[in-house]
Structures are given as structure tokens and as C-alpha cells.
């Protein structure tokens, strides 16, 4: 290890969410060519295979993809949660100038929770049922701060109040099962943010929650992010959540980033057929109900023996637009698309904007109009 850990501000133990002193816009996390492979008896499962992204302070990155696309595996790799004996990780994960993949377990342990924290999907199974919520938050705080139990408890109550738990001085002594789902997720957020980490990874934070509670939690996450000025990675399969929360979006498929760019760009001018498929396969609360959903045919590929060339080509309905057999033989690189260097995609199609505007959108909207006319006539 060549780089020294950055110096931490001295005011950390006072409980002031003072940020790091660095202004918004600094690069907090840089992931380069991350590969996470699991050797198994059947062969090597390439769960993540060449992932690149950067994340600036105060910004939110949304990672979307189906189950098995490598979203959670890559976030666990950033947290250093994989068993090194059973996992082969290569590439680099540079957090605040330090490559986390080169750290020893002891060094990583010092950073986990302090520099990078994680919120899991199911707060009931990620909290210990035998300890009170307060004890678990206190533990998370005392691991990194040399304070008395009393001080830590006061800080835990303060954080519980901050995330909107009513009567925090009483609820701090409750066990996880005494909390509702939404309150447990709030407590998880309190635990994650108690050390004011520069990076917060939220792995499907609202999937287990009802929509009204989901809205509460998303609002809370946004408020806290503004207040603590931390970078957030939000992993989800819900494009709606990404649309509301993220500044940047990374679409993952079969362990690779297939489209990456600013959120608004990706949602309005997607250039990768998989992203098109994701967008046209979800109904929305305002769209035309007479339109049939356009699903992505087939199933996600096996990561043991992924298809050759572009990993999406067996399910892609636009591969005939690429000359030759390129989609099958050669894997496209993640390169800038038609709309400038900020928006990259992994696809051979040369004129995705045309195709999206002429073929994909009309398929959704044209059918809508036709069906609408029919319905009107029948009345």
C-alpha cells in the first residue's frame, strides 16, 4: 500500500455532522475495472466483470438491473464483505484516495462504517434480534469513536430523533421486532449515518416497504444526504426510485455496466436496447392502459457460461441492425454514445437515437393511440 489514509477532521466525536471540509463535487469513489469472480465446482461465476464508475461528494448514483446482474455483489465488494477465500476480486475501488482492495482486513474494518456504510433491503434480518436497537447503534458508534456508553447513547437518541422515530429516548430500548418495517429502516439509516460516512450504499432500501413508507424513506434519505453532504449509491430495480433520487444512473446487465450517464439523459434518451426494454416493460400511473407492455423476451443469462459477444444479444430485438455478426462475436466496449462523452453505453448499434425515436417509442405510443381509437369507437 503506497497511499496513506487521509487525515480525518478532529471534530468527529463531538457529534456534529460537519462533513469532511471538502466541497461538493470532489470525487469520493472511483471504481475501475472491478471484477468479482466466484470459483465454484461448476466453473467460475463472473458475477461482476469489468465495472467502472465514479461518484462525487453529495451526488447520488443509481444502479439498476435485474436480480443476478451483479448490483449487490459489486456493492459488497466495495464494503469488503466478500470472503477472500472464496472470491477473486480484481480492479480498484478508490475511496477518498485509498484503494480499498489493497487493504488488510484490519484496515478495512477501521473504515467500514466510518468511511462507507451500508443500508440493506430487509432491516429485520440485518438487525440482531437479541439486542435492542439502541445497543446496536451505540455499538456502531463506539467502534469508531472513543466515547463513554452514556455519550454514545445520547448520540444514538439524537440520530433516532433525526431520522424521525417518535419518542426516541424510549424507543431506543426497544428490540427490532417492536419496530414497524418503516421504523426499522429508519433505524438502519440512523446506524449507517451515525459516523457520518462519506459514502452510503443503500441496497434496495425501500423494496420491502409500502409506497407511502417508501416515499417517507426516500425523502428522509435525500434530506440527510443534503445535510451530511455524503455520496450515495442507491441500488434498486425500480426505475421510478432511480428517477426520483439519482443524479447518475448505471444500468447493469450480466455483471457489466451497459449504460452509464446522467439520470435525465438516460431516462429520456436511452441508447442501449436493454434500457429501452426496462423502460417499456414497466407500466406507469399515467400511461395508456390499452397498450400492452413490451417485455424483454427470454431470461437473464447464466453467469457460469455467459453468451459470447454482447451479453444481451440473445434477448436483443435490434441485433439485426448491426452489420455482420458483430453482436455475437465481439463484446462492445463502454464508449460514448451519440450525445456526448458523459453518456456511455455498451452497444454496437450506430444510430440508437433514430431507432429509439422511430421504433421503440412508437411501439409503445402508436399501439396506445390505435387502441384508444378502438375503445372510443366501441363506446
Amino acid at each position, binding site marked *: 500500500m503506497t497511499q496513506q489514509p487521509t487525515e480525518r477532521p478532529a471534530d468527529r466525536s463531538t457529534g456534529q455532522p460537519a462533513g469532511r471540509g471538502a466541497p461538493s463535487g470532489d470525487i469520493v469513489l472511483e471504481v475501475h475495472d472491478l471484477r468479482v469472480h466466484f470459483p465454484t465446482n461448476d466453473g467460475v461465476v463472473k458475477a461482476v466483470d469489468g465495472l467502472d464508475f465514479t461518484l462525487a461528494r453529495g451526488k447520488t448514483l443509481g444502479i439498476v438491473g*435485474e*436480480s443476478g446482474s451483479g448490483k449487490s455483489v459489486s456493492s459488497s465488494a466495495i464494503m469488503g464483505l466478500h470472503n477472500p477465500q472464496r472470491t477473486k476480486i480484481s480492479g480498484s475501488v478508490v475511496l477518498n484516495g485509498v484503494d480499498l482492495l489493497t487493504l488488510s482486513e484490519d484496515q478495512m474494518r477501521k473504515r467500514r462504517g466510518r468511511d462507507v456504510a451500508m443500508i440493506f433491503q430487509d432491516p429485520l434480518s440485518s438487525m440482531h434480534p437479541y439486542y435492542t436497537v439502541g445497543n446496536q447503534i451505540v455499538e456502531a458508534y463506539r467502534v469508531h469513536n472513543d466515547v463513554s456508553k452514556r455519550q454514545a447513547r445520547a448520540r444514538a437518541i439524537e440520530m433516532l430523533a433525526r431520522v424521525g422515530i*417518535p419518542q426516541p429516548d424510549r424507543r431506543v430500548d426497544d428490540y427490532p421486532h417492536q419496530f*414497524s*418495517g*418503516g*421504523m426499522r429502516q429508519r433505524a438502519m439509516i440512523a446506524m449507517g449515518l451515525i459516523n457520518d460516512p462519506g459514502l452510503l450504499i443503500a441496497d434496495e432500501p425501500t423494496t420491502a416497504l*409500502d*409506497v*407511502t*413508507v*417508501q*416515499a*417517507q424513506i*426516500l*425523502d428522509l434519505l435525500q434530506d440527510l444526504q443534503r445535510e451530511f453532504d455524503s455520496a450515495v449509491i442507491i441500488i434498486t*430495480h*425500480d*426505475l*421510478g*426510485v432511480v*428517477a*426520483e433520487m439519482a443524479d447518475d444512473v448505471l444500468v447493469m446487465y450480466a455483471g457489466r455496466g451497459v449504460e452509464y450517464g446522467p*439520470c*435525465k439523459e438516460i*431516462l*429520456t434518451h436511452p441508447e442501449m436496447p436493454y434500457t429501452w*426494454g*426496462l*423502460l417499456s*416493460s*414497466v*407500466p*406507469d*400511473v*399515467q*400511461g395508456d*392502459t390499452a397498450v*400492452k*407492455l*413490451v*417485455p*424483454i*423476451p427470454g*431470461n*437473464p443469462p447464466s453467469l457460469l457460461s455467459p453468451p459470447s459477444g454482447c451479453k444481451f444479444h440473445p434477448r436483443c430485438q435490434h441485433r439485426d441492425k448491426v452489420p455482420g455478426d458483430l453482436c455475437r462475436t465481439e463484446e462492445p466496449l463502454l464508449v460514448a454514445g451519440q450525445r456526448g462523452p458523459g453518456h456511455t453505453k455498451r452497444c454496437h448499434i450506430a444510430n440508437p437515437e433514430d431507432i429509439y425515436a422511430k421504433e421503440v417509442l412508437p411501439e409503445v405510443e402508436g399501439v396506445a393511440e390505435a387502441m384508444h381509437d378502438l375503445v372510443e369507437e366501441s363506446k
Partner: protein
Amino acid sequence: MNEVTDESTSPDASSGTATATGTGAPGASGASVAPEPSHGDGSTPGRRTILEVDELQMYFPVKSSGIIRRTIAHVQAVDGVSFEVETGSALGLVGESGCGKSTTGRLITRLLTPTAGAIRFEGRDIAKLSPRELKPLRRDIQMIFQDPYTSLNPRHTVGSIVAAPLEIHNVVPKKKILSRVQELLEIVGLNPEHYNRYPNEFSGGQRQRIGIARALTLNPKLLVADEPVSALDVSIQAQVINLLQDLQKEFDISFLFIAHDLAVVRHFCPEVAVMYLGKIVEVADRVTLYNRPYHPYTQALLSAVPDVKQAAIGGRRDRVRLEGDVPSPINPPSGCRFRTRCPIAQDICAKVIPPLLQIGPRHKVACHFAGEAGKHPAQPVFSRALGVDENGSPEPGVTPVPGLVEHPGFADTWFDIESQKMGS
């Protein structure tokens, strides 16, 4: 509809009576539905109801600890729910977890016996039937479960899972079971050669298709789909929704579609009912419900849904923020159950339970201050009609408006909020 009431299920019923359930070619079930309009208001021609649920109630007892386990309270999971499902149509049931939507589904499939109320399936009350009487009915009402992993027996092959209903109901000769199973697998888009495989060899979406094939085995008339796609990935969700829509059209199946995903429900169901804490708070056709909801809970629920298109153009819709959690169904709030979280609640809401009253051609709402978002009236809309003053105390001088009663279906006349009279 004689065959429904007919108790005797002779082994070769399929060849004898007109049911043809089971053996019949796909589409036969639609033809077997009696042409005359079934029970209901019968006033709207062209609409037939297959299912009418009237004041359905399910209280689960809470027992004390100790040797004598006395009942100390009741979980009021479903409390006076009424609705209708039209033949060949789909009614969506939405609400947060714990609102009683799944319990309602289980009551209608009679996996549970309701504590009170009526479930009229094709005009016949099935709420209190014995298991023996229910057996022939099981053919007509089937269920699709949420979790395709736990709802299939891991030790049975797909073939035996799908064939089980055929064997139990004895509708197909043994020799023909395999061909029927393969036909069903093909209908739901699976490879018919895979009948010999076990569920663990299939992906989540494929398993859900197996569950659907099992539900279709006996050509049901009504399918209760309890969160059929919420365990699936988005791209697979669309496949399964399209499959269900195709099947609905092909076999003329009526659906009770239970889900918490408002966008999916809107896509699938022409009519949607919103539940909160065991009661229906609003029911309407989807255009009305999603564009002009009158109940503050529906408004909050809709405003909480993250919307891709809205966010893509920039900004988000204004949210009606709901604070806190759903109260306990053991001891629900008096009056309107939503009042503890309602942004516009007033005194009357704690005193008088708002009835679910029809306020439009196909629109019912249970709220004293029903109105479009941001335009809720200052005076309770039903108070005069219910014979109480604006604070909820009985008012002697005012008589309730006649004809203002709750009923499962929609009537031709409804209570007009503007004029405070019955109109049409």
C-alpha cells in the same frame, strides 16, 4: 348455472353435463357461463357480475396466554367489505400491507371462513359452505400466489403439480392427464417437454408460469391473483402480466387482482378498490380513480408512487405526505379509520363512520370530506344525508336521504355531492 349448484361430481361429469370444465378445449369455459344476467342490480345491461361480496367481515381472535386461552381481542382484518367483480373483467384491490387485501382474497377462495357477510359467486352464497360442498366450487375459483418459490412443492415434478387438480377432481381419464398437462404448459409459455423437471430447475418467472398453469388446470371462472408479479424482476413482470391478459381474453376469466403496485393494478384492472385497515375507502373505474381520486388516502397513495416519466422531464409531483404508520387492526380508530393520519380530518371523522357511498356513475368513496385533491369541501358532504350535524352529533330535524345505502355494486342513481341529492 345448474352445474354450479349441482353437488354430485360424477367421475365422468366432463362428458355428461355442459360444464366441460377440465377437458374442454381452451375457451369452453366462457361459453358455459349462463347467458342471463346474474345477481346484482341488473340495471346496467351488458354487465354481469360473477362475484358479489357483501359486508364481508373477518375477525381473527387474539388469545390470552396461560392454560385457559380466552379470547381477549380480535384482529379486525376485514371489516364490512363490499364489492362486485364483473364477468370477464378484473377488479384490482390495492392498499398497504396489513390492510386486509390478502385476507379478502383468501376469504373469497374460502381458504378462510368469514366471521360474517356474504360471498355470492354466480348468485350463490358460498361464505358458509362446508368443505364437502366447496369441493365442486374449487374448480371455478382458483388462486395464484405471490411467492413462486414457496407455493410449489419442491419434491414434486411440475407435471404432478399441474396434474394434481385433474386427479383430485377426476375430470380427465388417467391416460389423458399427461397430454392435458403438456397442453397447459404450452399455454403458459413453458416447454411441454419439461413436465418431468422439478421446480428448482426453473427461474422465478417460469415458476410463476407453473403456478398459473396449475390455477388454469380446471378452467376456472374466477382467478384470485394475490400479488402475482411482485416477486419477479421488471422484465419478467411484463411477460407475466401479458400472459395473464392473454389468458383472460382467451378463456374469459374474471380476476380479483390483489397488488400493492399501483401502476401494475392500473394497467391490469378496469376497476380498482383501495383498502385501508380492513375497509374499502374508494372504488372506481381506473380513469376516475387515478385521475380524480376523492379520498385523501387514495390521493396520498398515488402521490407516493415514484414516476419515471415525471422525473425524466424534471421535478416530481407534489406529495401528500402521510406521517406515521398504519394503526393496529386490533383496536382501530373510532369513526373513520384513516383519520389518525388524514391531513383533513375533523371532529365528525372520529364520531361517524363514513359510509362507502356512490358519488358518480362508477365511483364510490367513504370520506366525510370527499373531494378532489386540494379542493376538499369545508363542510362534511354526507352529514345532512346521514342525519347528523357537521360535528357528527345526531340532528333531530334532518332526515337521512332515502336510497342512500351501501350496496356491493353500482346503481343508476347516486348521491350528488354538489346538490346534496340523489341524481343520475
